[in-house]
């Protein structure tokens, strides 16, 4: 492995590796904050003797150069594949760009047409409402199920290890497999859920869980309509992701000092009170982090909805609409405009959390 990464040769070369210089570098005279490890760096391949120029700084410069060199592959790839493309998305959202005539890529006539298309779409509010219901309900359900499961599996008992493994299945299996199984389970003709409902529970007719925009239910003579397809994709999302919440919360629960809870018990706090006043406050941070992560990921989720319903039956969330603009309508500009608006929502959520420091304490904990 090269110590001197290519492309950084023009950094000021101020290293001095003579034994005498190294000995000096390790003396207590070096500036505060200099770690001892950094001074002990021999690097025998380096050219010798440049005369004694500002040695501690040279050492720092070399360390900085090496650091940048090691981190640069990562930086470059992220820059090329994530950051620059995103900036380009901003530009594209103001261009009139269709997939058929990509020659227009370099035509920088800016226009607001894409935003007019996206914001003027008759399905806009439906889409916004669907996306918000989907991401908020999906997040709440996912984190809630994760919390209950973590609490239930907190103490050791026979079989706990096996249950813990089973709980992670939905999360690790490929989304395509998961969606296919759900589609088969919920199939209106021979899916076991519907067959069970009709044959055993006495439903009048099978429910198109993934194809009906709304279904009328009668309970005790009161009828009400439920958006079954939307509820089904929310259930899928919660099922697929609650193991993540479970893992995070369980890790935090197991890291909790026992004595507080023990003290509360001795003082006569019942289990629910201990949960409310001792455990919950300690979990608040990790739950806040999970809510943010899950909201951000659910909000942008494409796979689940696309694979389950294709965005039909009142489940067209924003990511699916971006895909439709891009692929089905060949309208790159509008896809970019909608994607940009979508990113703004996410950045706002992130900034809100960042502002209140939730992430910082939790990630560094």
């Amino acid at each position, binding site marked *: *492995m*090269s110590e001197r990464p290519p492309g950084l040769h023009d950094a000021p070369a101020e290293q001095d590796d003579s034994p005498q210089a190294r000995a000096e570098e390790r003396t207590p005279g070096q500036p505060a904050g200099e*770690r001892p490890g*950094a001074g*002990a760096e021999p690097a*025998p391949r380096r050219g010798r003797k440049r005369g004694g120029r500002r040695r501690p700084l040279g050492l720092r410069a070399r360390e*900085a150069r*090496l*650091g*940048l*060199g*090691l*981190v640069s*592959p990562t*930086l470059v*790839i992220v820059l090329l*594949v*994530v*950051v620059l*493309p*995103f900036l*380009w998305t901003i530009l*594209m959202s103001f261009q009139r760009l269709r997939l058929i005539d*990509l020659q227009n*890529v370099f035509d920088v006539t800016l226009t607001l047409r894409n935003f007019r298309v996206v914001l003027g779409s008759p399905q806009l509010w439906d889409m916004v409402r669907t996306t918000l219901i989907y991401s908020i309900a999906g997040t709440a359900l996912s984190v809630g199920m994760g919390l*209950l*499961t973590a609490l*239930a*599996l907190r103490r050791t008992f026979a079989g706990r290890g096996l*249950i813990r493994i*089973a709980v*992670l299945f*939905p*999360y*690790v*299996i*490929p*989304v*395509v*497999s998961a969606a*296919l*199984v759900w*589609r*088969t389970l919920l*199939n209106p003709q*021979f899916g*076991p859920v519907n*067959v*069970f409902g009709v044959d055993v529970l006495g439903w009048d007719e099978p429910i198109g869980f993934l194809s009906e925009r709304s279904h009328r239910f009668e309970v005790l003579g009161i009828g009400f309509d439920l958006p079954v397809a939307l509820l089904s994709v929310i259930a899928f999302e919660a099922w697929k992701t609650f193991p*993540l919440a479970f*893992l995070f919360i369980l890790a935090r629960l197991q890291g909790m000092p026992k004595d507080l809870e023990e003290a509360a018990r001795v003082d006569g706090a019942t289990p629910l009170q201990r949960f409310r006043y001792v455990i919950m406050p300690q979990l608040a941070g990790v739950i806040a982090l999970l809510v943010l992560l899950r909201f951000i*990921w659910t909000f*942008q*989720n494409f796979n689940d909805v696309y694979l389950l319903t294709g965005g039909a039956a009142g489940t067209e969330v924003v990511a699916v609409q*971006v895909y439709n603009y*891009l692929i089905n309508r060949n309208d790159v500009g509008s896809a970019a405009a909608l*994607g940009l608006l*979508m*990113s703004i929502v*996410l950045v706002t959520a992130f900034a809100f959390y960042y502002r209140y420091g939730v992430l910082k304490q939790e990630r560094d904990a």
Partner: protein
Amino acid sequence: MISREQVENRVLGVGRVLWLAFIVVICVVPLLYMLLLSVRPLQAVLSDPLDFIPSLEELNLEAYRKVIASPSEGGYGLLSFFRNSLIVAIGSVLLTVLFSVLGAYAATRLRFPGKNVINTSFFAVYMFPGIVMAIPLFVLFSRMGLRGELGALVIIYLASTVPVCVYMLRNYFRSIPEGLEDAAMVDGCNRGQVITRIVLPLAMPSIAATSLYVFMIAWNEYLFALLFLLERRDNWTVSLGLAQLDDISVSETVLMAGSVLLTLPVIALFFVAERLLVEGLTAGAEKG
């Protein structure tokens, strides 16, 4: 007189058992159903959908034969997609681990300008909407003629996982005592030797965890495979190939057989290295 403590303990105890039973059912039954359906003839499933347990004489692997066999033999050609998925997943793992080991080492042991900016931006990148990232890449790769190439997918998976992996490895590198490295340096090792002889062997568990995490993401990924490979059937990954089968009304038993095959490698890895994967997931979390 029963105390409130006892009542709550009783009620919560029962609730806990019920909840765990519910959770185990929803986590295990879909996979079990997938497996059971895949080894039965479709006719038997249609005639009694609630009879899950196949009788011995029913058992057959016809669905597997059909989903694996190449189209020329009347099958759906899933086997050739396995090669593509493996290339993409292993390529992503190798590159990501290489990049993230270097990056994580720099981020824990060295001081350089912009280090904090890098750390923060990684977290932001990690949460970036895949679909938004896909738009410009789609246009770019289309113009460069790279759409349809497996290499394009590897680059995307690398970029979307490497920040998380740097983060995961960094936490681990921090726990390796710096004194060891100092000692090696005093003994005449250079940085490269310190990384290959001291840090890497000590960090092997976390590198394994990172590799598993990347493998799983690359193996399971669907959106980018759909966007970039759709027009190149010979380059389809298993996920994409299976999802495309669903569109052309293939029988459910065949779909389930394909799902079992797609899921099997992930579940196998999971059982082999559950602890490592959990570690990886807790540190990284899958975007999706």
